[in-house]
């Protein structure tokens, strides 16, 4: 090929590439412009004092766009149930519920649930929270309040939404719901059936069997140790309502830690769902000797269930008596009034 022809070919190729790139750039800008415009329109249409209610619908394209703008990398197809917790790190009162979002995500993530924490707090502040609470749920930084405005969440960022795959709001609440209420709502909409069944601690601890070792830590803190009680009475305490159980039963805990157990040592093991600091403070102030009081570091069989938080412990607490070989001699309910 002659040099002149080659030059012409190169020039034409470059020109063509330029056309293609220009077209692509304009397409992208135009597309973004269109999407941003549709998102802006959706936000304007969403502009209302009233929060979204059950049955309201969301423009799914606008929602997807808003999620992407705030950092979601999700491109899932088909669409999924979307659980959104609006919060700021200072809303510590909602943390229990938000941590439960992680539990739901682990259980239903593969069958179509996405969960996000949406916040307008600065990323370092949020990262602190995520690290401290070991949250695995993705966090969306709603810097320009795009999600908040689109989903009509209050400007104080305390709101929870569950959105069905078709954009229908199936749950909307200012604040964060209790764990068990959220479980019921998610089961109803995702599984179709609410599970009301309940575990019984007495079915887990059977007379004649060996009491399994329990991983615990002293309630004053410290390293995790394995409790393998012998010739002892072990009081296993669930956490259905941590605050009320703690306060209402204080006298009982005091009696249990001071009264004799027929020559056996008596150990109190609280569910790991009790807040450690509050437990320690309240027991100490309540005059309970804390030498033999522990916080479980694993679920207590039949008493604890991280998914069905209210399902365990029909008995609230059980006293398991073990012999010198660690075999269970008896299992009694603490709260049975006979």
């Amino acid at each position, binding site marked *: 090929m002659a040099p002149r022809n080659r030059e012409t070919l190169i020039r034409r190729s470059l020109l063509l590439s330029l056309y293609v790139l220009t077209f692509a750039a304009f397409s992208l800008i135009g597309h973004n412009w269109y999407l941003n415009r549709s998102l802006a329109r959706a936000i304007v249409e969403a502009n209302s004092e009233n929060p979204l*209610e*059950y*049955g309201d619908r969301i423009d799914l394209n606008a929602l997807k766009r808003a999620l992407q703008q705030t950092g979601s990398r999700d491109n899932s197809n088909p669409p999924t149930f979307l659980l959104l917790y609006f919060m700021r790190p200072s809303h510590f009162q909602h943390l229990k519920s938000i941590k439960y979002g992680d539990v739901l995500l682990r259980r239903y993530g593969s069958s179509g649930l996405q969960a996000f924490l949406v916040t307008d707090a600065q990323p370092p502040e949020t990262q602190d929270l995520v690290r401290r609470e070991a949250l695995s749920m993705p966090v969306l930084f709603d810097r320009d309040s795009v999600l908040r405005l689109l989903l009509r969440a209050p400007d104080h960022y305390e709101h929870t939404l569950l959105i069905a795959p078709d954009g229908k709001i*199936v*749950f*909307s609440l*200012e*604040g964060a719901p209790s764990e*068990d*209420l959220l479980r*019921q*709502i998610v089961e*109803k909409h995702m599984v179709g059936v*609410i599970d*009301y*069944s*309940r575990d019984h601690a007495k079915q887990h601890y059977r007379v004649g069997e060996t009491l399994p070792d329990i991983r615990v830590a002293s309630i004053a803190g410290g390293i995790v140790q394995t409790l393998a009680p012998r010739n002892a009475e072990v009081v296993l305490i669930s956490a*259905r*309502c941590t*605050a*009320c159980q703690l*306060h*209402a*039963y*204080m*006298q*009982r805990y005091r*009696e249990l830690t001071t009264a004799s157990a027929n020559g056996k040592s008596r150990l109190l093991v609280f569910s790991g769902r009790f807040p450690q600091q509050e437990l320690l403070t*309240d027991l100490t102030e*309540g005059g309970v000797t804390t030498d033999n009081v522990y916080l479980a570091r694993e679920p207590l069989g039949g008493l604890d269930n991280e998914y069905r938080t*209210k*399902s365990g412990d*029909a008995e*609230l607490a059980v006293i398991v008596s073990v012999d010198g070989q660690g075999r269970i001699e008896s299992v009694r309910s603490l*709260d*049975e*009034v*006979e």
Partner: protein
Amino acid sequence: MKLPQVLISFMLAHTFMPATPAAAQKTQPIPETTLRATQVARDIPLDQSKRVLVGPDANYYVLDAGNNRIVVMSPDWKFVRQISAAGQEPGALFDPQDFALDRQGNIFVIDGKKRLQGFTPTGKHLGTITYRAECLALAVNGRGEYLLSQPELGALVTVYSPSGEVRRSFGQLKNGEGRYRSVANRAHLAVTRADEVYVSLDHQGILQKYDAAGRLLWETAIPGDQVERLRGIFWSDDENKSKYGVVITTVHSRVPAFYVAFNLFLDDTRRQLYVPLNNGSIYVADADGKPIKFLKQPRGAVDFYSSVVTDKQNRLVATSRFRGVLLITPARPA
């Protein structure tokens, strides 16, 4: 809170505590009976049962609040059916607070979405009306009117027509200032066959009776040192009242309010009132408000009865926050 602070708090509370009705001042020893509570229907999962009522069909209707449903059980404690389930759509329940039965056995439930919903005894949704003020208790009268405890609206009881319009209100608010005024005047209600209304103020331990037109007939405070102590806790500025018993903090009010009395049940046949208290006992009075007895738990027992009812076999049945449904019998003769 340290002991001196508690003492100061109590002294302040008793100094500034509003005066209770005169009847309470003349306290006389009231008989006490130790009760025995036996858990029944153990195979039916219940969570935070708030109220039990007996329907015209003799079945028990239990507001299983934690499970957002009403559980119907037979007189021998077998599961019959459930009414509604958790949700925010019409016909579903979201954080139900209280319920009532009308004379036909229809069920009316109020929930955390400020809705009053009706259901047939078999669970068919009859309809929904919405209201604007917080409401934690209701009753239904013989005219099909709904009586709601909504002190935020300026009276103890607001009466709604069957279609949801406010018809009238009655009962003067007692004590409390600012946002505490509404909280202090929350009440539970009971209606007689003649549509007279009994009111039990949840946080003040006061009983009242109104005629069908809403005129106050009498008022009395639940007597006894222990009840006085509960009142003192409600009015005190102690920051952690849950140490002494059950406290309610609603999203609407955000005021932690210590209960004195949880509920009110009228046995219209035997003309007796039953009021479960926040010390685990049950106060029994006659229909004129005169004290009959306290039913007390044995020493060391810990439970709070959210409601009580007498059934068609004259058994006393209670609901407990954690233990579901309980049969209450005397532990030893009075």
